[in-house]
């Protein structure tokens, strides 16, 4: 199976090279047969990558401990569930996984548009093949996942060598979310390749701007949705597994996943400027290019360990390949832009500071500044070493100082943007639109202050959450009322009808609502408290309204690990409330490797988060670390809304049929169709 896999990868590489070279020839000659054959080569590349991926997965499932990759990342007792995840737990496998996910996108694009957009598709195929070649080169020649173990015998010949069992999967990855988080994040990273390919292809082919924007909108949203999910699942995993009490630590690898999300989000907004007003064409093209570059950079940061992440110690040689690829993309993009920039001329100019356009402009500015801040903070050690010779890193205070104001400003624009008109907004309409939302914001701020959340940023954040939440509600309410008046349906059904008639707009509002919930959760972070104590059985400690009593401890054996479990009784306001079981797991396979399982009691108001932190060095007594984190649950809820909203936006809008003239008796349509004219119109304004 290893031979099969590596052969499939090699053949995929050959096919991809043909798709690239043949594709360029096809563009130059416009030969229909050549166009068709390169497209099919592109499809074959994808299918071969699928086969290679399945054969690596087969090696895991057949416990083939002659394979170096399987030995490093699996063992016999590892459950089936995690054997799937073991695929992307190391360098070689995750690069193959990148190729695999990219192939799913590429194959879908090639199949969906096989008979459409004849002028553009050969270019798209070439760009996609180019990206695939890079990753296939890594899969084949730099980090092959199909290496077998071997011993060099006395005579110098290499003899195959089979281990009895593997080293096992990293315990930190043995957690259900770790099975879905990387595929999500990687689907986001790889998904942005599609809009990139279309943007570059459109620029090269001088294809009309509205058309490529229209074609890539759904692909961008799909990638964005996966990226958002991936980031949130990663945050949740860090929260539930790493046991330090937080969900975001501004770690380089976390930042790497945030960067393309920031530019991708900016793009999803600025694209509306191009569709509605024919503006920001250059900006949009560059946002797509940047997003893709940041996806590659993200993969590079994660894989190379150039900025040692708090956890990553090792460095690998793969970095130079990525740097080369990044430079190549930049050169290609710049050349294409300089050559064809005249076709990106703007059709309109900005008229007023208080307008929908300007809110989009400031939205984009803030996303870009946020991106630059996170990028420079993340790469600071690298740059400071280049320029001063000293390697200097910046920590969370740096990121928080910049990102909190940016986040609040973006939240403000989320509320304000939809209230402003395109072109120019009158004072009267502002008064009419802003009154109620402002009041809602003030109520939210007062309530939070009364409840005890007293911090400048948090109060401001909750004020804005109230404000934005109410503007979203008003958007739905006003639209639904019009439909209800016309159709006689109740408001709830009308709201649903409204959303279905313009899924993109109202899906967007649902996403915004999800962001409001996430911000409510983030506002809680200012009030986190924690206590750590070395406890004997029977000892207790107080944390907010809770009292924790360490009852006893036990051990629990599973096939793949032994868990040491603390039994902690929790009293709330001195009433017996529940038992929590924070664990420490000692895994088989690797020596001394252990993982924490945090016990979390989560309510909308706060999370009680209890960690068995280890044994005290002097007394050997267990150390229990407990955190009280307010409002965290809102973040995960918000994430669900973000996904639902994106899905809604992906559904095609419902066409509205309006019957303009009624006759008392239904006339036979076949006889006099003119009496009953049905006008189809699409109500839509984004």
């Amino acid at each position: 199976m290893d031979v099969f896999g590596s052969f499939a990868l090699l053949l995929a590489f050959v096919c991809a090279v043909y798709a690239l070279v043949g594709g360029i020839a096809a563009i130059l000659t416009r030969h229909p047969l050549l166009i068709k054959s390169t497209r099919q080569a592109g499809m074959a590349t994808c299918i071969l990558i699928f086969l290679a991926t399945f054969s690596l997965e087969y090696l895991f499932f057949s416990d083939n401990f002659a394979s170096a990759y399987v030995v490093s990342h699996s063992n016999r007792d590892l459950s089936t569930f995690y054997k799937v995840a073991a695929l992307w737990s190391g360098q070689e496998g995750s690069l193959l996984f990148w190729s695999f996910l990219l192939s799913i996108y590429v194959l879908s694009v090639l199949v969906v548009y096989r008979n459409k957009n004849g002028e553009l598709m050969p270019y798209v195929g070439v760009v996609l093949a180019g990206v695939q070649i890079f990753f296939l080169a890594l899969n084949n020649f730099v980090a092959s996942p199909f290496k077998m173990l071997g011993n060099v015998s006395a005579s110098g010949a290499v003899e195959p060598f089979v281990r009895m069992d593997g080293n096992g999967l990293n315990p930190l990855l043995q957690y259900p979310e770790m099975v879905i988080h990387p595929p999500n994040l990687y689907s986001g990273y790889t998904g942005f390749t599609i809009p990139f390919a279309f943007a570059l292809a459109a620029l090269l082919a001088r294809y009309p701007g509205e058309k490529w924007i229209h074609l890539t909108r759904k692909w961008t949203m799909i990638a964005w949705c996966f990226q958002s999910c991936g980031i949130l699942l990663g945050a949740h995993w860090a929260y539930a597994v790493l046991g330090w009490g937080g969900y975001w630590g501004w770690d380089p690898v976390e930042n790497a996943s945030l960067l393309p999300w920031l530019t991708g989000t900016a793009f999803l907004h600025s694209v509306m400027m191009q569709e509605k007003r024919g503006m920001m064409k250059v900006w949009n093209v560059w946002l797509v290019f940047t997003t893709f570059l940041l996806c590659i950079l993200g993969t590079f940061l994660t894989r190379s360990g150039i900025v040692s992440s708090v956890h990553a110690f090792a460095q690998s040689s793969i970095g130079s390949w990525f740097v080369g690829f990044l430079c190549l993309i930049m050169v290609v993009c710049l050349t294409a832009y300089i050559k064809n920039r005249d076709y990106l001329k703007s059709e309109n100019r900005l008229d007023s500071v208080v307008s929908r356009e300007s809110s989009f402009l400031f939205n984009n500015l803030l996303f870009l500044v946020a991106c630059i801040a996170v990028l420079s903070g993340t790469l600071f050690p690298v740059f400071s070493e280049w320029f001063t010779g000293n390697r200097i890193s910046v920590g969370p205070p740096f990121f928080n100082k910049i990102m909190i104001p940016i986040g609040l400003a973006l939240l403000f624009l989320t509320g304000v943007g939809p209230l402003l008109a395109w072109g120019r907004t009158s004072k009267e309409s502002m008064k009419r639109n802003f009154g109620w939302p402002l009041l809602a914001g003030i109520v939210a701020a007062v309530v939070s202050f009364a409840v005890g959340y007293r911090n400048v940023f948090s109060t401001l954040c909750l004020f804005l959450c109230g404000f934005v939440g109410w503007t979203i509600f008003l958007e739905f309410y006003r639209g639904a009322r019009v439909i209800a008046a016309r159709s006689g349906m109740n408001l709830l059904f009308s709201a649903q009808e409204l959303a279905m008639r313009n899924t993109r707009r109202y899906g967007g509002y649902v996403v915004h609502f999800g962001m409001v919930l996430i911000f409510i959760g983030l506002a809680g972070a200012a009030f986190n408290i924690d206590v750590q104590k070395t406890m004997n059985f029977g000892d207790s400690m107080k944390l907010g309204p809770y009292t924790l009593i360490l009852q006893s401890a036990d051990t629990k054996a599973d096939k793949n690990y032994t868990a040491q479990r603390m039994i902690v009784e929790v009293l709330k306001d001195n009433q017996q409330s529940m038992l929590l079981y924070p664990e420490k797991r000692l895994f088989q396979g690797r020596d001394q490797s252990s993982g924490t399982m945090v016990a979390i009691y989560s309510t909308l108001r706060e999370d009680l988060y209890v960690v068995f932190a280890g044994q005290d060095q002097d007394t050997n007594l267990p150390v229990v670390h407990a955190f009280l984190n307010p409002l965290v649950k809102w973040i995960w809820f918000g994430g669900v809304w973000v996904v639902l909203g994106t899905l809604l936006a992906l559904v095609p809008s419902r066409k509205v049929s309006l019957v303009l003239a009624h006759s008392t008796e239904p006339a036979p349509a076949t006889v006099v169709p003119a009496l009953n004219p049905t006008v189809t119109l699409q109500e839509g304004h984004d």
Partner: protein
Amino acid sequence: MQSRAKFAVGITVIVVCLSFLAWLGYSDSKTYYHTIAEYQSLQGSARSHRMRLAGTVASGSIRHSPGRVDFVLEEQGKTLPISYIGSDPLPDTFVDKSQALVEGRPGTDGRFVAEHVQAKCASKYETAPGSDKPAAGSPTQQSSM
């Protein structure tokens, strides 16, 4: 033209404010990375920076005493005595010959006072550097964050 000027002012104000915040955050949190050899040759104000050092825990050097753990970090033949003073228990992976990262400031008696210690087992087999999340891929643990 007037509205263009307004935009320019708005953008400038935003960028200037955020740059100022960035500078504040930078001075608050900058941490220097040094090798042990570099650390020993630091002079004057450079010695008061917050810094991060890496090395291998010298065999048999770990000594527990109430409220602190003393050990010696080795790197390229140079050694440095470290005192870890922190409330968090040290990670399980912190043993003789493990690779460790310490973060803190120089103490007064020639010892380096670490507030955070991270450690990674010296594994017999190569482990991949980070999967896609911070801790993924390397059996590393943090003592605190």
